[in-house]
Every structure is written in structure tokens, then in C-alpha cells.
């Protein structure tokens, strides 16, 4: 269905000839599904029914202690300093953002009174500003009221380079203005279709002005509140030991009725993922365990005990294979894999196509990842409104053989194909991690049958993922033919995620290999689509642009997607813990409760 068809359909919903439900069902059939449909309708002025929360308790407190296990403990509790998710999660117990991302990649108001939209006047028609209305009657844990001043202060605090915040990227280019005591407006330098970055989700937790004001800038490390957070969240601070334990107790003044359910919360850190899963699913010592990166087989076995289950929620992370477009073995101007070169073997489209046919994604899913890695044909998988239906994948050694044969790659006496004296031999690298080494094996075996020789290389993760300029084994240098790893998508908007094929971001010596385009694949069409999406305010057109970008990269075989990796947590069977792949595990901590 093209853009015109979509618009007609939306029109019919407006006129009442097609119900919301029917519309969404038809979209599901098209592969766009509910969230896109909902967003399209919202954009076209059709109100979205507020999702009903599944929260059952009818009074505040009385739930006892909530015990959660993070195998990497939180090391600090200031959200603006949070280096990793563990720190964000620790902070999220006490601090809240204006809005959070639900599992479908939709915004849910937390400290905001409502989500800005074109109907309620929150979104400017030119896309250059967004107005947030704040919830009234919210109090900090020390009793002071939460107002627009706090929100404006967070922008000042985070955007000050001297404060050394990690969140500075979300705040430095915007300007925040206070309209009245409970309204703020965020101004963008240019039209921003994705306006929900500052004050939202992981980077949007609001810290109190009255306690941090004196510690803005160079003195930011000295604030006593860095270690003793005073927030607006459902639990109040009790005790914190970096890397070990965060404790909180019920906030009886919480701004939502009947919440929270638990009287106290304990977030224990340390150990490893497998035993964390055990503590929830086998012994029941804990109620929840974060990020249990454990083989699905083990998870399934633990689930049989009947005490807990794995909570699997889709996000945007994807395990994929990159094919180098440049020559990693020749040095040009002091740099290997320079964009002035072309890969001697992979420049042949037939070879790239053959490799694409030789990755048995289903086998990788079935034998290695199970529920924690789903075979995919797309690079951009989620939210579903951006998932392309145009691509496909298959595994066929015969077809690969045929392709290579017709392209003139003939088998030599050693069974390896060659053309013009060049043998089809590649070095295939990844980080050391059991599932990755197994995946490498599966691909190597298939390639062998097609006359391609893969030399497998595994690099320690701390080296592979480091940004050490002096090391030749880092993934951003990509000094080899093929590599595989997981790239993360931390927010539901793909703009930042999709920048990894931009010509301007090619990883090179010049930018100390910090450029995000690691395959060094370049396409004018791609660049055009990306820059168009950056300022495209129409969500339908924008979604189409992202699908096009995905298709371009996939069809050019710049990358071969393998499996997308949902997030996995271990949850006690009695606990109700809504999780989201687009936000912290604690995004809706206020709604967690346990069956009596």
C-alpha cells in the first residue's frame, strides 16, 4: 500500500466508515501494525484511547519488600552521570522523567500532564518547538513542589560542559524556556520530527533544582545529593553502596493514587547473569533479575521449576554481519581499510550475494539463541512501524554455488573458488562470546560447501569494543573482511540508529575511527533519505524513508542481519513487572506489584 492509499484509509476512519480497530487490523496485515497505525491516526487528528494500565492493587503499600538483582550493580545515582544502564536503573528508582517509552515505542506521561501532540497544541506546526505541560501537585521527597524551574534547571545543568554530564548530547543544542510554573517549551535549532529526547526516558530524569543548584558546573562531583537522591519517584532513598546495594522505601506522598505497592525496594548488584536467573527462577530469593544473558536452553530448564519465567521484550538491538567495502589488507596513506580502496573480493556483487545466502539465520536462532535471538531479514526491526516488508532472506548453498559459478569463480584443486588468481578467502572476526563463536562455525561450514574459505578470528570483548586508537583489532577499525557484533538501538526513533551508513560518518584515521559508518559503505540515495528523514514531520513519509534506508543497506549487502536481540529479564511468576525494550527496566516501577 502506498502513501496515497494510506491517506484514503485514514480519511475513511475520520469519516467513521472504518473503525480504529479495523484500520489497525488492516495495518497489521501490511506489516506496519498497531504502533504505526496509532501514530498515523494521532497525527491525523484521531484521538488515541488512553491505554488501560493493568495495575490492580487498590491501596498504597502493604506489598512488603521488592527484591531485585542486577548482576552489575549501580555505581552512581545521578542520572546525568549514568555511564551505563545499571546506573540509569538505580537512579530511576528515585527520579522520573517527563515521559517514558512503552513496549510499543509510544510515549507515556510520567511527570508530564499529557503527551504533547498537534491536537493539544504541544507540537508546533513548524516542528521547531515542543511544549510540555507538567503534572501539578507533584512533590519532591523532601516536600518541596516540583515546578517548571526544576525542568529548566536540568537543561542548564546537563548542557554545561563543566558539569561533565553524560546526557549533554540531548541538551546542548536545544533551548528551554519556562512559560509558567507548570509549562516549559523546548526550542530546537531546526524542525525536529523526533522531539522526545530531552526530558524523556533514560536521559530525561529530572533532578531537583533546590539541591543541585549550588553544584552546577565544575563542582558537580561534590553534590551530596549525588549519593543521596531526592526525587519524585515511587520510592524514597534509604541507603546506597556503590556496586552493591541500593535501597529505598515507599514514598507515601507519591503523585499517583494507590501506588506504589511495595513498602521497600532492594536492588542488589554483583555476580553473574546465570546465578541471577537462578535466584529468581529456581530459589525464588529475588523477585526480578535484570538482563539475564543466558542461553535459552538454560532459561527453559529453569522455567520448568515453576517459580519464575523469562520476560522477553523486543527492542532494536541486532546481531549482524558487516562486509567490508574497502581493502583491509592494503595500507593507503597510513591507514588500512581506507575509503580510497575497494575490497578486492567483496567488491563483486555476486560474492556478497552468495555470502548473504550462506548465513543460516534460522539455524542460528534454533540452535544458539532460541527466544533471545530471532532470525531477521532487516537491519531496522523495531518499533514495528519502521520494519520493512520488502526484504527477504533465504539459506541456500546451491544457489550460492550457482551464483559464484556464473560469476566466474571456479573451484580450485583445494575446493576453494578463485578468479583471476584471487582465492575466495576471508578473515571473519567477532568478539569472544560463546554464541558468537558458534555462529561463526555455522557460517563457516556453509561457506565451505560453497567453496569459500573463512578464517575465524575472535577478539577479547574489551579490546574489540574499545576505542583504543593504537589497537588494530577494534571493531571500528575493521581491519578484516567480515565481522559480526550487536549494535544497539537505545531509543525507539531510528534517526540516530540509522546514521551508521552515512558517507559523512565513515570510520577513518581522520576521525580516530570514531565514525559510526564501520562498513564504509556509501550511497547517495541513502544519504539523501537520511537527511530527508531528519526534518520530515509527516510520520508516514518518515517511516517510509527509514524503510527505504533499511532496504538500501540490505540490498547492497553492506550488512547481513542475523538475529535481532530482544531484552531478557527473569521475573518471579507472582510479580507483575511491565517492561519495555525502549526504556529502563524500571520505566514503570510505580506499577509493579505482586499477587498476594
Amino acid at each position, binding site marked *: 500500500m502506498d502513501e496515497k492509499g494510506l491517506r484514503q484509509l485514514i480519511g475513511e476512519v475520520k469519516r467513521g466508515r472504518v473503525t480504529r480497530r479495523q484500520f489497525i487490523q488492516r495495518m497489521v496485515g501490511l506489516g506496519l501494525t498497531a504502533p504505526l497505525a496509532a501514530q498515523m491516526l494521532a497525527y491525523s487528528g484521531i484521538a488515541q484511547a488512553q491505554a488501560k494500565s493493568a495495575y490492580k492493587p487498590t491501596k498504597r503499600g502493604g506489598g512488603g*519488600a521488592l527484591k531485585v*538483582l542486577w548482576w*552489575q*550493580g549501580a*555505581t*552512581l545515582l*545521578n542520572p546525568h*552521570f549514568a*555511564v*551505563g544502564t545499571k546506573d540509569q536503573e538505580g537512579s530511576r528508582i528515585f527520579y522520573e522523567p517527563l515521559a517514558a517509552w512503552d513496549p510499543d515505542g509510544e510515549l507515556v506521561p510520567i511527570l508530564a500532564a499529557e503527551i504533547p501532540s498537534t491536537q493539544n497544541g504541544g507540537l508546533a506546526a513548524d516542528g521547531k518547538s515542543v511544549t510540555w505541560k507538567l503534572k501539578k501537585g507533584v512533590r519532591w521527597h523532601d516536600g518541596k513542589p516540583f515546578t517548571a524551574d526544576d525542568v529548566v534547571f536540568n537543561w542548564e545543568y546537563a548542557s554545561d*560542559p563543566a558539569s*561533565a554530564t*553524560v546526557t*549533554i*548530547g*540531548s541538551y546542548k543544542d536545544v533551548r528551554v524556556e519556562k512559560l509558567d510554573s507548570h509549562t516549559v517549551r523546548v526550542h530546537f535549532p531546526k524542525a525536529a520530527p523526533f522531539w522526545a529526547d530531552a526530558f524523556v526516558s533514560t*536521559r530525561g530524569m529530572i533532578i531537583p533544582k533546590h539541591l543541585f543548584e549550588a553544584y552546577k558546573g565544575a563542582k558537580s*562531583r561534590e553534590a551530596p545529593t*549525588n*549519593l543521596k537522591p531526592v526525587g519524585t519517584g515511587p520510592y524514597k532513598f534509604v*541507603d546506597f*553502596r*556503590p*556496586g*552493591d*546495594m541500593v*535501597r529505598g522505601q515507599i514514598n507515601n506522598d507519591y503523585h499517583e493514587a494507590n501506588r506504589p505497592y511495595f513498602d*521497600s525496594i*532492594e536492588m*542488589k*548488584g*554483583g*555476580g*553473574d547473569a546465570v*546465578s541471577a536467573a*537462578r*535466584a529468581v527462577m*529456581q*530459589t525464588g*530469593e*529475588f523477585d526480578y533479575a535484570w538482563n539475564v544473558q543466558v542461553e535459552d536452553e538454560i532459561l527453559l530448564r529453569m522455567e520448568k521449576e515453576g517459580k519464575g519465567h523469562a520476560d522477553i521484550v523486543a527492542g532494536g538491538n541486532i546481531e549482524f554481519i558487516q562486509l567490508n567495502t574497502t581493502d583491509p589488507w592494503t595500507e593507503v596513506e597510513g591507514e588500512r581499510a581506507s575509503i580510497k580502496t575497494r575490497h578486492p573480493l567483496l567488491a563483486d556483487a555476486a560474492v556478497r550475494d552468495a555470502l548473504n545466502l550462506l548465513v543460516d539465520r534460522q539455524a542460528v536462532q534454533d540452535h544458539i539463541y532460541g527466544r533471545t535471538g530471532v532470525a531477521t531479514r532487516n537491519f531496522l526491526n523495531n518499533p514495528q512501524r519502521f520494519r520493512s516488508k520488502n526484504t527477504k532472506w533465504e539459506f541456500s548453498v546451491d544457489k550460492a554455488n550457482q551464483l559464484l559459478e556464473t560469476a566466474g569463480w571456479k573451484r580450485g584443486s583445494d575446493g576453494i573458488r578463485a578468479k583471476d588468481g584471487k582465492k575466495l578467502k576471508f578473515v571473519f572476526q567477532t568478539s569472544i562470546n560463546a554464541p558468537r563463536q558458534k555462529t561463526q562455525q555455522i557460517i563457516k561450514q556453509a561457506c565451505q560447501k560453497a567453496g569459500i574459505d573463512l578464517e575465524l578470528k575472535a577478539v577479547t570483548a*574489551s*579490546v574489540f*569494543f*574499545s*576505542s*583504543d586508537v593504537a*589497537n588494530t583489532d577494534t571493531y571500528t577499525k575493521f581491519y578484516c573482511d567480515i565481522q559480526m557484533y550487536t*549494535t*544497539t*538501538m*537505545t*531509543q525507539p526513533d531510528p534517526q*540516530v*540508529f540509522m*546514521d*551508521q551508513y552515512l558517507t559523512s560518518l565513515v570510520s577513518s584515521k581522520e*576521525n580516530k575511527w*570514531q565514525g*559510526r559508518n564501520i562498513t564504509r559503505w556509501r550511497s547517495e540515495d541513502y544519504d539523501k533519505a537520511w537527511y530527508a528523514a531528519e526534518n520530515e514531520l509527516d510520520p508516514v513519509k518518515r517511516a517510509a524513508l527509514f524503510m527505504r534506508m533499511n532496504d538500501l543497506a540490505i540490498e547492497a549487502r553492506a550488512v547481513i542481519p542475523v538475529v535481532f536481540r530482544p531484552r531478557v529479564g527473569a521475573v518471579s511468576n507472582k510479580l507483575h513487572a511491565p517492561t519495555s525494550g525502549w526504556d529502563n527496566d524500571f520505566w514503570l516501577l510505580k506499577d509493579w506489584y505482586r499477587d498476594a
Partner: protein
Amino acid sequence: MGRYVLRRLLIAIPSLIGISIVLFTVLALAPGDPFEELATNPNVPAEVRANLRAQFGLDDPVTVRYVRWFGSMMNGDWGFSFASRIDVDQLILQRLPVTLFVIGSSQILALLIALPIGVYAATRPYSLFDQIANTFAFIGFSLPTFFTGILFILVFSIQLDWLPFVYRTDIAATGWRWWWEHGKQALMPVAVLGLFQGASWTRYVRSAVLDVIRLDYVTTARSKGLREIAVVVKHVVRNALIPVVTLVALQMPAIFGGAIVTEQIFRVPGIGSLLISAILANDTPVIMAVTFVFSCLVILFNLLADLLYGWLDPRISYH
């Protein structure tokens, strides 16, 4: 004696400086930086990381960083952790009591096992008791703690469901109940470490006692008609203990250093787990502080062991 101690302490200074230089250089050469996690997050621009590195002085040459670290260390400033932005001494002090308790009790347990069993086995060499003790000692120190740790968890926590396997410093209970809960959770880590240590010490005690018990003066003591217990305790054990004391004294720094593997398995928030998480996060100030304190303790306890010799064996004198 006083001059001897003074001389030893003076010798220790250059070795400590040497140790700190080696540690610092090795850490500087190791790949990775404390803001690694930011690099893989597409929403954090590369400048943010570069900025943080510059602000924390990570871009300066190693020599400059070393001199700065050394200077502030001399002034008693241990620096602050890059990961948690908290002063390092505060972090270490938070972890120390747990480590002292868990590792300390495991060493006591080890001594309680090793001394009586080793001595008794040596007084009756090649008896059935000796054979059994030997076999168990062999098994005990052949099994690494990460293996016994997991085995204990599987048996006592998962199969039998008797003991918790997550160690918590904050137990919401008071009085007897607090002690009971604390004992329950400490039992497994203490047993794992204590049995391992005890097994190897048993072997040492046994061979040390065996060496002494055959000497002529022991025969003399026996022929004087002294009771067996007096012979063993007063005449044999005191002399046999000298090598054992060295061993035990050299083991003492470990009480402060923590047990990395065991602490990790049982989630004991001690110095060992602090060190390992600091290493994983490339948190140089914390790694430096912990390892440096550890080397100071090693040197100190070496000296202490030497001084103990003199007390145990008056024939040894110091020059």
C-alpha cells in the same frame, strides 16, 4: 631490633615506589577506558566521551598522570572513582568490614581445621586417620574455589534450599535473628574459602610436625616421662610452627585483599569484588588504590613474619 625494623621499613620505600610505577604503567598500557560503555551508545556523541576523558585527565601522558597520582597520594588524597565519582578511600572503607569478616572467619576456620588435623596426623603417620586426612586434604586443595562455590550453591541452595546464595550486607532484622541470617548467608563463602585454605595448611602442618617429631629432644622429652599431650604441645608444635607462621602471615594481606572469585560467586560486597568490577570498568584510581594497599600489606606482613620468628625461636637474631 629497633634498628633492624627501621632498616627494613626504609628498604620498603623504594620497593613500594617501584611497585606503584609498574602498576601504573601496566594499567596505562591496558586497552580500554572508563567510558567505554558510552562508545557503544549511539545517542552519546563521541565529543562527550572525549570531553570526559579530558576533564578526568586521561589524555595526559602516563608520566604526568603518574606524578599527579603520586603527589596526591602523598597528601593522603586517593583520588575518586571514575565509575561512581566517589572518593576511593570511602569506597574501600565501605567494603572493608565485609571482607574482614568473611575472609577473616574463613582463615580462622582454616586454622581450626589445619592445626589439630595436621598435628594429629603427624603424630600417627600412615595410620588410617592420616591416610583419610591426606586424601581429603588433596581433594580439598585440588578443587578450585569457583568449582566448590558453584557446587555448594547447587546442593545447599538449589537442591536442598537451606542457605541463601546472595550475600546481603543489609539484613532487615535485629537481635538473634540478625545473627542467624548473617551466619546463614556467610556459611557457604566462609566454608568454601576455609576448606580450601585448611586443606593446604593441613599438609604443611603435618610435614612440619613430622620433621620435628623425629628429633632426639622429643625422644628425650618422652623418656622423661612427660605426658604425650605435653610433649606434642610444648615441645613439638612450638618448633614446628615456625614455617607455618610464615605461611599464615603471608596469607594475612589476602584478608584485606578479599577473594575475587568467591566474592563474585556469592555476591559478597568486599574488596575483591570492588577490584574486579573496577578492573572491568577500567577504573584506574580504584584499581591503583586497592592493589597498592595490598602491596603495602604484603611488605608489612613479611616484616611481621620475620619478627615473629625471633619470638618463636630465640636462636634467630636480627642485625
